[in-house]
């Protein structure tokens, strides 16, 4: 009903093959039988291990069947992953042997000790079942890395760990999960479920008591004892430097989201922020001169330039260097424009260089029109009407070139051209 990348000719060949068709009909029968059994058990609100096994089999055949994931969670909440209950109430049939042993103990020991040992037994059992659940999900996630429901269920399982285990034990689960998400992102460096999930996992390690799924900070998470922002920033550095990493817009994007927090946690002053910005620009310059046709680099470059020139909101600074004076901004823009013009000589047909030039010269003009900063003591080169006219001519020439080398987007370029008149 919503298939991707299945070849029509292959599908047609399969459809003509009678042996395969017979097999398919048999599969349909088996699948439907299993599905109706599981649905019937659900209607009868059966929350036991046999029903759980039914969901395991069904979800392996069809992990998109979201209702069955819901049923699985209902069962788990009542059985293997139920919250700790007082002694005497069975957690599950498999725990029968443990229970007998506990009952024997009860006769001879003091009640407090009994409670402690019961709780320890519960914790180790629950830990085991949580691990089993995660192990069930792993191969499914490898086969269906874009299936929302599997990612959701995995997250639910980890959140369940937070709910039913002592904090240190639950923390181990989140820590180990980072390893898995790293593995998934190595296999598909752009999987946006993977990146999203990574941010969830990180925030759960940073704020262990957090429950909100929406990425918003929860009130009571005041104790930021384990910020991972340095580690995550280093991770994006590693990602963009790996093979093909330069084109990894997901990594560049994550980097842009981490930097404001990174700088604030490093308690960077003005000069350190300026230095950081220069280093980022230098990194981009190296990458862009290697491959000026890579969109990912240009989007990141544009973020660096825009967020640091168009007056950012000083209360929530997203800029790397939010307190740059007008003069410094002009110098930075002029330097970037020079670099791009040099690059253009080597790559005259590269539309991205031309686009950036058109934009940054426009920005330069806007910054120039900003009121002069009283504390700005830097000498400014003189700017005449002739200079301004020359810049306008430059932009017209670049835009005309863009219309000819990138005709698909000529509507965009013509709109800017009209704005210059």
């Amino acid at each position, binding site marked *: *009903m*919503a*298939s*991707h*990348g*299945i*070849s*029509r000719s292959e*599908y047609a060949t399969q459809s003509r093959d009678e042996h395969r068709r017979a097999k*398919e*009909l048999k*599969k*349909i029968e088996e*699948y*439907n039988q299993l*599905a109706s059994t599981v*649905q019937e058990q659900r209607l009868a609100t059966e929350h036991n291990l046999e029903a759980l096994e039914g969901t395991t089999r069904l979800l392996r*055949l*069809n992990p*998109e*069947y*979201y*209702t069955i994931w*819901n049923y699985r*969670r209902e069962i788990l909440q009542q059985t293997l992953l139920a919250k700790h209950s007082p002694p005497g109430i069975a957690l599950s049939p498999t725990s029968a042997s443990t229970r007998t042993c506990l009952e024997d103990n009860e006769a001879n020991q003091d009640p407090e000790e009994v409670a402690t040992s019961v709780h320890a037994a519960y914790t180790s059992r629950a830990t085991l079942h949580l691990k089993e659940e995660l192990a069930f999900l792993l191969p499914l996630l490898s086969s269906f890395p874009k299936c*929302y429901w599997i990612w*959701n269920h995995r997250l*639910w399982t980890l959140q369940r760990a937070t709910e039913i285990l002592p904090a240190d034990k639950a923390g181990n689960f989140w820590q180990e999960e980072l390893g898995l998400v790293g593995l998934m992102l190595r296999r598909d460096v*752009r999987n*946006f479920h993977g*990146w*999203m999930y990574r*941010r969830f996992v990180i925030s759960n390690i940073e704020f262990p008591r957090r429950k*909100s*799924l*929406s*990425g*918003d900070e929860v009130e009571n998470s005041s104790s930021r004892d384990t910020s991972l922002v340095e580690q995550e920033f280093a991770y994006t550095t590693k990602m963009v430097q790996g093979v093909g990493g330069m*084109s990894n*817009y*997901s990594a560049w*994007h*994550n980097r*842009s*989201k981490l930097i404001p927090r990174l700088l604030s946690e490093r308690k960077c002053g003005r000069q350190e922020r300026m230095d950081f910005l220069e280093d980022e620009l230098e990194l981009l310059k190296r990458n862009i001169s290697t491959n000026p046709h*890579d*969109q*990912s680099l240009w*989007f990141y470059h*544009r*973020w660096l330039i*825009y*967020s640091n020139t*168009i007056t950012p909101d000083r209360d929530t600074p*997203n800029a790397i260097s939010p307190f740059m004076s007008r003069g410094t901004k002009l110098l930075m823009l002029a330097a970037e424009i020079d670099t791009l013009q040099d690059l253009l000589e080597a790559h005259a047909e590269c539309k991205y260089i031309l686009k950036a030039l058109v934009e940054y010269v426009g920005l330069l003009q806007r910054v120039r029109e900003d009121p002069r900063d009283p504390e700005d003591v830097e000498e400014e080169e003189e700017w005449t009407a002739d200079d301004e006219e020359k810049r306008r001519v430059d932009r017209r020439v670049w835009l005309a070139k863009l219309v000819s080398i990138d005709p*698909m*987007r000529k*509507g*965009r370029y013509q*709109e800017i051209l009209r704005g210059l008149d």
Partner: protein
Amino acid sequence: MASTLLTSKHVAYIQSLDTKRDRLDYHLTSHLRLSGVYWGLTSLHLLNHPTALPRSETIDFVKSCYHPSSGGLGASPGHDPHLLYTLSGIQILATIDALDEIDGDKVVEYVSKLQNPDGSFSGDEWGEVDSRFVYCALSTLSLLGRLGDAPGVSAEGAVGFVLRCLNADGGFGMAPAAESHAGQIFTCVGALKIAGVFEKSLSEDQVNLLGDWLCERQLPNGGLNGRPEKLEDVCYSWWVLSSMAMIGKLQWIDREKLVEFILSCQDEENGGIADRKGDVADVFHTVFGVAGLSLLGYEGLKEVDPVYCMPKDVTDRIVWNHRKILTT
């Protein structure tokens, strides 16, 4: 390669979908069925064959997916309610002018219970949060004429959440800090349009950045991708294009090349449109291909509403002609 839209083939293809019970795919996709009906029905309306699916059976099917206890709809009978399918059900009933067949108050109740304190919506009681679900909620409420007066719903909160999903590249992600993605852009821009606050929420710079990000989705073969450095796919003919239409920048891409690309993905023998040329067609890519062509003004198609992905005459009748702009 087909150079025109094979309307009658597509109509026959959509009509045949419910007869393919001898194929495993049919059974493995029951978790999508109600959305499948919405995709098929919308395609048929845009293709000017609005009565090609039997009306009363369609209504019966929608009702069979309804959960009277919660007010939500599932994907098929026996499947749990979810915002995704609740929206599909309401879209179907709105399109065939049958909204009175369902208890609107109860549906509103279902939707409103899924809003979280931070303004976001969960997809169902299990709590998955995604900016898509804000769209589903606001679209459902507005089609029911209840956007301004749904008890317990904060449209301002929903808008606030959507704006926290806005990125510096002009796009939107599935949650705050998530990478921009064309599908999420459609839902976030759509949500802001439905709430009537798009124009005052984004600056001219932000709209230009968004438009630029979107027009760069067009690849040399004319097709559109959903993120930088990814492959083209017919469904982005909708997610990208509808967003461009909503911000008034359709002219920033090459219309002819995109039309040619969509037409090349048709199954000339059996009808339907695939994700790419030569692949198996499905109803999901069929509706987004046809709707894309409609936005591009392709001859003979009914006008589609870029905000709702429904026939424009339907949304005019239900929403736009008597809407109350929210005061935020």
